[in-house]
């Protein structure tokens, strides 16, 4: 055996040992939540551990989403993987395709005899993570959707009383704010997610064929349609006059909003806590994403981003019982409501949303219900249920690259989106071939 031979050959060097003590029944949970969110995750695990004595959940922070996912995959190949790993939404297709590696959540709950009712969960959230038969494959954990944050004081100074509802209004407000002395109108975080993926769902436009990839891996991208080109083209135009100002791929543009350079900012509803903490010198408000009246008479619904918890195969059934118990704990209304209110992530169950409303949280914190209203605005269509494309981590990078080329004026919106679609399709074919 290769492994044994190798282990023998190393001789002297091999007397290393792992120090993790596998006391009682321990459940390893790898996550990607840094900062304040990381502290909250630890609190969740501690809460569960204190609630019973048979199982112990050990949260391990593994860096960024990509680092967490790749570490878990590398560990799986080496048979050293955790029980639970947090994977961001774009990794979904990769995880789903790995049939022998994942332990579907509905199966897990059934096998370990935990009470589990899929209809307790918010359909628009779980829809992203269910297979074609409606079975839930992973446990939603932190889901968010993009919203519009705006600087109330700046809008007032510019003579605007209400947050803009449509894109032309956004441009209007931006120009007024610029006239009032602000250097930039709006900026965005996570451009592919906000300006392509959610833009499409919000306007009921397909991102790809085969129901955005839900119906098969032989899907192709369609986000170079006339509607997409018009939208990206408008942004590119606005970049020249700083109505729009690009500030980086992730949330790197946030300081532009905090520092009152830009008066509007589109990013995840989960950025709420950060905005609240950092918007020191001004009042801010939250509103729905703008839409183009030319493309849709009224907006559809937005889709989620964030991550879910996947269970990996290859551990003892006793340990999986602990995982199932932990998931029940995590889904309870009290835990979810607290998580939702603290982080700005969507509640994953209807009960948690109701509880939050009863507690008067939305009244006390205006704007925090924008995300859930956006998600449930209309019943989701094929175009707004979510998306499922393989290799999407890389494809997002391609979209980022091409969009950056558009913002800098190297390419027109049409050229950039065409290039992104054709490069993306290549990776889709590669994914189709390897699965």
């Amino acid at each position, binding site marked *: 055996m290769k492994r044994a031979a190798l282990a023998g050959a190393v001789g002297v060097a091999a007397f*290393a040992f792992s120090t993790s003590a596998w006391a009682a029944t321990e459940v390893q949970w790898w996550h990607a939540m*840094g900062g304040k969110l990381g*502290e909250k995750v630890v609190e969740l695990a501690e809460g569960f551990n204190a609630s019973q004595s048979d199982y112990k959940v050990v949260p391990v922070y593994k860096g960024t989403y990509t680092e967490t996912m790749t570490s878990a995959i*590398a560990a799986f190949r080496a048979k*050293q993987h955790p029980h639970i790993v947090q994977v961001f939404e774009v990794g979904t297709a990769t995880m789903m395709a790995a049939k022998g590696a994942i332990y579907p959540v509905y199966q897990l709950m059934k096998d370990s005899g935990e009470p589990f009712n899929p209809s307790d969960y918010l359909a628009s959230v779980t829809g992203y993570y269910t297979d074609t038969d409606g079975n839930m494959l992973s446990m939603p954990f932190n889901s968010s959707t993009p919203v519009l944050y705006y600087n109330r004081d700046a809008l007032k100074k510019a003579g605007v009383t209400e947050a803009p509802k449509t894109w032309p209004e956004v441009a209007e407000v931006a120009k007024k704010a610029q006239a009032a002395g602000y250097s930039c109108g709006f900026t965005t975080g996570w451009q592919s997610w906000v300006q392509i993926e959610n833009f499409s769902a919000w306007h009921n436009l397909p991102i790809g064929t085969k129901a955005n990839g839900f119906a098969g891996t032989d899907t192709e991208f369609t986000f170079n349609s006339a509607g997409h080109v018009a939208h990206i083209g408008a942004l590119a135009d606005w970049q020249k006059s700083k109505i729009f100002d690009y500030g980086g791929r992730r949330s790197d543009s946030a300081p532009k909003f905090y520092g009152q350079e830009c008066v509007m900012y589109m990013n995840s509803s989960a*950025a709420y806590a950060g905005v609240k903490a950092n918007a020191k010198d001004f009042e801010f408000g939250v509103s729905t994403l703008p839409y183009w009246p030319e493309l849709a008479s009224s907006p559809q619904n937005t889709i989620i981003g964030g991550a879910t918890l996947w269970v990996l195969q290859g551990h003892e059934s006793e340990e999986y019982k602990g995982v199932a118990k932990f998931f029940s704990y995590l889904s309870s209304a009290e835990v979810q409501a607290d998580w939702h209110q603290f982080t700005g992530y969507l509640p994953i169950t209807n009960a948690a949303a109701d509880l939050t409303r009863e507690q008067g949280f939305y009244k006390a914190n205006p704007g925090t219900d924008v995300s859930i209203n956006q998600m449930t605005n209309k019943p989701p269509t094929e175009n707004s249920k979510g998306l499922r494309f393989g290799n999407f981590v890389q494809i997002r990078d391609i979209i980022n690259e091409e969009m950056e080329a558009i913002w800098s004026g190297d390419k027109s919106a049409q050229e950039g989106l065409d290039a992104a679609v054709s490069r993306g399709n290549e990776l889709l074919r590669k994914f189709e071939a390897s699965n």
Partner: protein
Amino acid sequence: MVENRPWLTAFSHLVLIAGVLVTAFPIWITFVASTHPGENLLAGQAPIWPGPMLWQNYSEVLSAGMGAAGGVPVGEMMWNSLIMSLMITVGKIAISIVSAYAIVYFKFPFRMTFFWLIFITLMLPVEVRILPTFQVVADLGMLNSYWGLSVPLIASATATFLFRQFFLTVPEELLEAARIDGAGPIKFFRDILLPLSRTNIAALFVILFIFGWNQYLWPLLVTTDESFYTIVMGIQRMVNVADSEPQWHLVMATATLAMIPPVFIVIAMQRLFVKGLIETEK
């Protein structure tokens, strides 16, 4: 100098002072940022003079650590970095000085094969073979251990190569004399070669210590247990946080602390460091 050009001398000083300022600037900004409250750094421009939060920030990272890095106190991460770099340094020097000795002072079958086998590893960084290497380390059960952190990084030829170059410049007469005195290979190595290599060992100590201390991606991959996190990896983690902004003041305080040990070693050993390297190079 025969001639005296006061203007040129003044100019030289001016250039050097400018050079020092430019080199020190990033470090200064790091230090300055580590003395301000976090919000100051996120809104508007970074300050250029120190702020009032020196003690708070440093005591926070030293005692509690920060959530963004898994809440591991900086002191503990620095201790891990220290152990890892010392293991790499000592291990590398030990195995490479003996293998260089064998390759230079012995004639034996497959000598050149061994030499090339080692030599080929000279430059390829661990990043490009990281996944297969991870697999090996996992198979050997070395994840989450100081061995796993350090042993795979010992597999590099730099030190062997430098020792070989140095041994080649050692006069042949020494060996002849030693053999006339009846000294065996081990005695010759211990009594003559080792003392002669002192400066080289010192130079390598500096290089390898810094190499080990500065590792980033490898520790990230092989550790899942917080008690083995290293400092450089901790800093990177503090910067990459999902759905929120980095707490720059704490990042910079940690960065300042992380720089102290390697900078101290370089400055304290600079004379030996240069001498050791130049001698080998000649």
